[in-house]
């Protein structure tokens, strides 16, 4: 395409480049710097070296607790949600007439799930005399104290995220539908059962989307905020006090910007290390069908 200079493309991406520098690159570097300072918004940031990090890892019991529940939350939520999403996608991937109806019904929670209104609903559903306990009692059981018990409270937050399995499921379903049907027929003629077919044909072929979903869901789960903030306020006994809540409180409640930045960086490094491990291990288990594009 002649006529315009070779910088024409740069003009088009200019808004992105400016935004990247101003709102991503600069804040990224700045937060790293801030994590080595003491900054209360009133006076200038004061360089304190690694003091924030030392405090985090040696004397901050809240951080220990928060890190622990964050890891528990992520490592239970992500596998549960993805397994469920894949299971439903496999069940749906069949010549069912109502496939679109089901797909829609399952997708609705994903659309609404991040909304405060849903967190409000959750708070009410799991209240002492809320929907779930009313159902349990009407079936003859004992009501459960959902928000008073640390394990139960974390479970309600986990369940909220698993409930939003729809978007992961739609991605799985699209991948399942693109698997070449003749492979199934060939395997079935060779006498393979449904489980063998799933294990040895379907699963390897959809590893790229499993990988994609795994990374995206993990990165998002580490940043969960709305659910615990509205439903449990981090309690009881900080059992749902995920790191993003701690960072928010430190930064925007106690205006301890330096310390909050240090926690954010710890969280970032954890996410990055896990992502890198996933990318590194993907060479061993993700199968790209004779295709070097990613």
């Amino acid at each position, binding site marked *: *395409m002649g*006529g*315009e200079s070779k*910088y*024409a*493309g*740069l003009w*088009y*991406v200019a*808004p*992105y*480049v400016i935004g*990247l520098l101003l*709102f*991503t690159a*600069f*804040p*990224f570097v700045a*937060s790293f710097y*801030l994590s080595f300072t003491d900054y209360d918004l009133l006076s200038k940031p004061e360089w304190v070296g690694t003091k924030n990090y030392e405090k985090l890892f040696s004397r901050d019991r809240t951080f220990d607790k928060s890190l622990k529940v964050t890891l528990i939350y992520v490592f239970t939520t992500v596998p549960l949600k993805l397994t469920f999403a894949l299971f*439903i996608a496999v069940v*749906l991937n069949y010549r*069912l007439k*109502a496939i679109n109806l*089901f797909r829609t*019904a*399952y997708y*609705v*929670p994903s*659309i*609404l*799930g*991040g*909304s*405060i*209104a*849903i967190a*409000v*609903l959750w708070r*009410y*559903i799991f209240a002492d005399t*809320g929907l779930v306990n*009313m159902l349990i009692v009407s079936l003859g059981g004992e009501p459960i104290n959902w928000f008073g018990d640390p394990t139960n409270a974390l479970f309600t937050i986990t369940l909220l995220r698993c*409930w*939003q399995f*729809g*978007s992961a499921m*739609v991605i799985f379903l699209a991948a399942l539908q693109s698997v070449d*049907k003749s492979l199934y*027929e060939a395997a079935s003629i060779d006498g393979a059962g449904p489980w063998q077919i799933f294990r040895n044909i379907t699963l390897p072929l959809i590893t790229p*989307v499993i990988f994609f979903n795994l990374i995206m869901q993990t*990165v998002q789960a*580490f940043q969960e905020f709305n659910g615990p903030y509205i439903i449990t306020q981090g309690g009881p006994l900080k059992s749902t006090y995920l790191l*993003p809540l701690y960072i928010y409180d430190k930064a*925007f409640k106690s205006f301890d910007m330096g310390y*909050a930045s240090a926690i*954010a*960086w710890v*969280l*970032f490094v954890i996410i990055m290390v896990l992502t890198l491990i996933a990318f590194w291990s993907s060479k061993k288990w993700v199968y790209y069908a004779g295709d070097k594009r990613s």
Partner: protein
Amino acid sequence: MAMLSDISPKGRGDRRPPTQIELKLRRKARVSATIRYGLLTLIGLLMVYPLIWLIGASFKTNAEMFTSPSFWPNEPTVQGYIDGWKTSTPYTFGKFFLNSLWIIIPKVIGTAISCTLVAYGFARFEFPFKKFLFASVIATLLLPNVVTRIPQYLLFRDIGWLDSFLPLWVPSAMAGDAFFVFMIVQFLRAIPRDMEEAARVDGATTLQTLVYIVVPMLTPALISVCLFQFMWTMNDFLGPLIYVSSVEKYPVSLALKLSIDTTEAFAWNQILAMSVLALAPSLTVFFLAQKYFIEGISAGGVKG
């Protein structure tokens, strides 16, 4: 060779009676379909019941709220809606809906325009550092916002944008939502360039080509972008929580949080009624345009 797909209940042209194996396979298919339908219906009901129940409960009286797991109100009333709408603030929920709209509309328009320009640049031009810049789009996609949030806040504070909607609008209007750039680039790569090249040969500038040739073909992708941005902004809580401090500027999400904090424990019907209203715009948009959502996530993969 016998294909499984040949053994369909509709039968083929020949009139021979079905063999034993065919009968067995058909029966298996029927059983399988029944199990699948049963399972899907059960899980589907379980998924959707909280929402159905929310709608029913919003028409209940407070007294009835905690007495029955049934969604159907015994004495339907709109009192929750009337009282909830008034709120405990000087404003009604109408004001908060207008605020949400006033955040959403510029943000959606800014997103659509900037992401189209940027994606066009990436998909159709060669320029210095292109590879690096496009890699940064992917990196931003994975970068947790939590790590940039504090300096962003300080930046917006220093330029005097706190308690305005500018921190919510401007980054999006600079193609800051990398996911949408990525999605449109993927879409553009799949569109043949013949028409664009013809237009360029006829003397159209690249911008004219973009506006008159590319954008019309991009329409389905752009609708997906606008719909997702609409929902995400409607649901966004943390952004307004950090940047919007005066109640008169509160969007619906903050107003709901405020009504939980300020309403006494016995006014659940008001809160649930307002929750229904808060979900209504997203639900309506979704049901009117669901095919764009499904296509959008299938094409690029989405958070959620």
